[in-house]
């Protein structure tokens, strides 16, 4: 059995971390079934008794809202003979009935009944045989997280330096609320999940991987990730990482410039933002734009999109993608959705090329030499910002080093 600490150094990581099935199994136990993992958003189950099928890595989860409005994360497995109790992707029901022997469970996970109950000799099973559940469920700004560990750090401790990203995202809504109502496209790649995780805040790749669309669409995005960019890469602690583009957007000083448009094109949205925040603050918010933050291990707040990583095997990952929708931002939402559809998913003008890179990375990592992957970029110019976070230049590998530090903490203990 490999010793993880031997495979991770400050400026390089061993290739087997991406390809060894035994390490993948350990990751499930040490990371996915232990730390806080993003599961879903409250707006996906808006009404009492709504439910939607979700996942924590390979684990099938049903996110329910009970009659009282409380959110539960239940495992989609009958407590009797392990059949799936929920087939529909989403719906509204106060109960789930197993098709195999008719056992019925409430949407809080309680066993409600089982047919021909005299067959159990009068023993009452209801108290002990509820659905399995994710023991800890917490939410922040409507984002629901689950942890399979009964005890451990709270969600707010876990989010730590990434908390601000949720606040910044919500602030783009005149009602301070994000909605996830556009549905998720599921994009499957033959690659290890950490290749996706690291790529989300890799500021070095856009000019190369996305050169085709930047040139065709005459996009300025490439410049944000150039050698001259004043944007920074940031280690937010806890494995959370960021490409902070605000220095560039502030330098340009153009409200909605980050979204490739102007305030004049979205008058209804801009006036709703001014009414909510005051003209001056609205202007600042609309100049700063949306965060580009990877929340370890599986939620990428990708400016106008959300990505959720779902590892299924050492060589198989599903990237779930949707458009951010802003409550009270009707005029903006259509554009957010249409731009997202163009960019992401299996045929996305951006993401098809990222996914090609993940798969090429994964095939390459099977080669035996040189055994290591190099993460030296920007080591000589790491610095500490005013909040005490480690930052580097836009194209530096500060985020990747931060991810591996957190990974080693979790895998080593």
């Amino acid at each position, binding site marked *: 059995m490999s010793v993880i600490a031997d495979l991770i150094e400050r400026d390089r990581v061993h290739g087997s971390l991406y390809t060894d099935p035994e390490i993948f199994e350990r990751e499930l136990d040490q990371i996915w079934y232990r730390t806080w993992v993003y599961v879903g958003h409250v707006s996906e189950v808006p009404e009492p008794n709504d439910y939607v099928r979700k996942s924590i890595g390979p684990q099938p989860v049903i996110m329910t809202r009970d009659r009282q409005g409380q959110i539960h994360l239940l495992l989609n497995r009958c407590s009797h003979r392990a059949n799936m109790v929920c087939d529909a*992707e989403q719906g509204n029901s106060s109960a789930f009935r197993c098709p195999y022997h008719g056992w019925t469970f409430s949407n809080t996970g309680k066993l409600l009944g089982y047919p021909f109950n005299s067959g159990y000799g009068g023993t009452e099973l209801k108290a002990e045989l509820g659905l399995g559940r994710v023991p800890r469920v917490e939410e922040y700004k409507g984002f629901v997280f689950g942890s399979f560990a009964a005890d451990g750090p709270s969600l707010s401790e876990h989010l730590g330096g990434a908390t601000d990203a949720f606040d910044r995202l919500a602030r783009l809504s005149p009602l301070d609320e994000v909605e996830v*109502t*556009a*549905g*998720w*496209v*599921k*994009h*499957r*790649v*033959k690659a290890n999940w950490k290749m996706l995780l690291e790529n989300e805040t890799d500021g070095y790749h856009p000019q190369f*991987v996305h*050169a*085709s*669309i930047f*040139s*065709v*669409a005459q996009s300025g995005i490439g410049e944000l990730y150039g050698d001259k960019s004043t944007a920074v890469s940031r280690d937010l602690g806890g494995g959370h990482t960021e490409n902070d583009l605000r220095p560039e957007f502030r330098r340009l000083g153009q409200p909605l410039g980050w979204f490739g448009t102007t305030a004049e094109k979205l008058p209804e949205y801009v006036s709703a933002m001014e009414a909510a925040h005051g003209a001056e603050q609205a202007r600042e918010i609309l100049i700063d734009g949306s965060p580009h933050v990877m929340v370890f291990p599986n939620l990428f707040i990708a400016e106008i999109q959300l990505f959720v990583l779902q590892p299924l095997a050492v060589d198989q990952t*599903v990237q779930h*993608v*949707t*458009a951010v929708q802003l409550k009270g931002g009707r005029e903006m939402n*259509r554009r957010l*959705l*249409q731009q*997202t*559809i*163009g960019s992401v*998913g*299996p*045929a996305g*003008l951006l993401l*098809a*090329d990222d*996914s*090609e*890179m993940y*798969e*090429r990375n994964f*095939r390459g990592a099977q080669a035996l030499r040189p055994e290591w992957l190099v993460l030296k970029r920007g080591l000589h110019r790491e610095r500490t910002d005013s909040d005490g976070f480690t930052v580097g230049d836009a194209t530096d590998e500060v985020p990747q080093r931060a991810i591996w530090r957190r990974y080693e903490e979790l895998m080593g203990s």
Partner: protein
Amino acid sequence: VTATATDTLREVEQFIFREARLADEHAYDDWEALWTDDAVYWVPFGSDDADPEMRMSVIYDNRSRIATRIKQFKTGKRHSATPPPRVRRVVSNIELLEDGEELRAGANFVVYESRERGITLWAGRAEYQLRRAPDDTLRMARKHVFLVNNDRSLDTLSFLI
């Protein structure tokens, strides 16, 4: 069935076969020329009747985004299509659903795609809305592609489906 209806069906079939061949062969310019100026190219995700104005799709291109997509392929730096995958499709069950100023046709298809990742099979139904250009040849105003597995996770789709 009148002779005229048979002629129209035959013409529509030939159009669909040609469109399929141009897509298979990554003949980007010729394929793009099949579209009308108000074209919509739609590949829904989740269900066949999801509202593309409200829900995520795999592709929901207006005419200008079709042009962008084609230009991107032609840069030679669209990594997911460089080199382009080897692709061949069979189109069958072609029906003329509506005849008139606007023609509507439906067809089933199976696509066999080979690339370094391996072989990927794509299957589904395509519906076409066709219109006559001033020179009387057919153009595509809509192409809707309903993949049979569009409610499950999909591989990267980097050719014209």
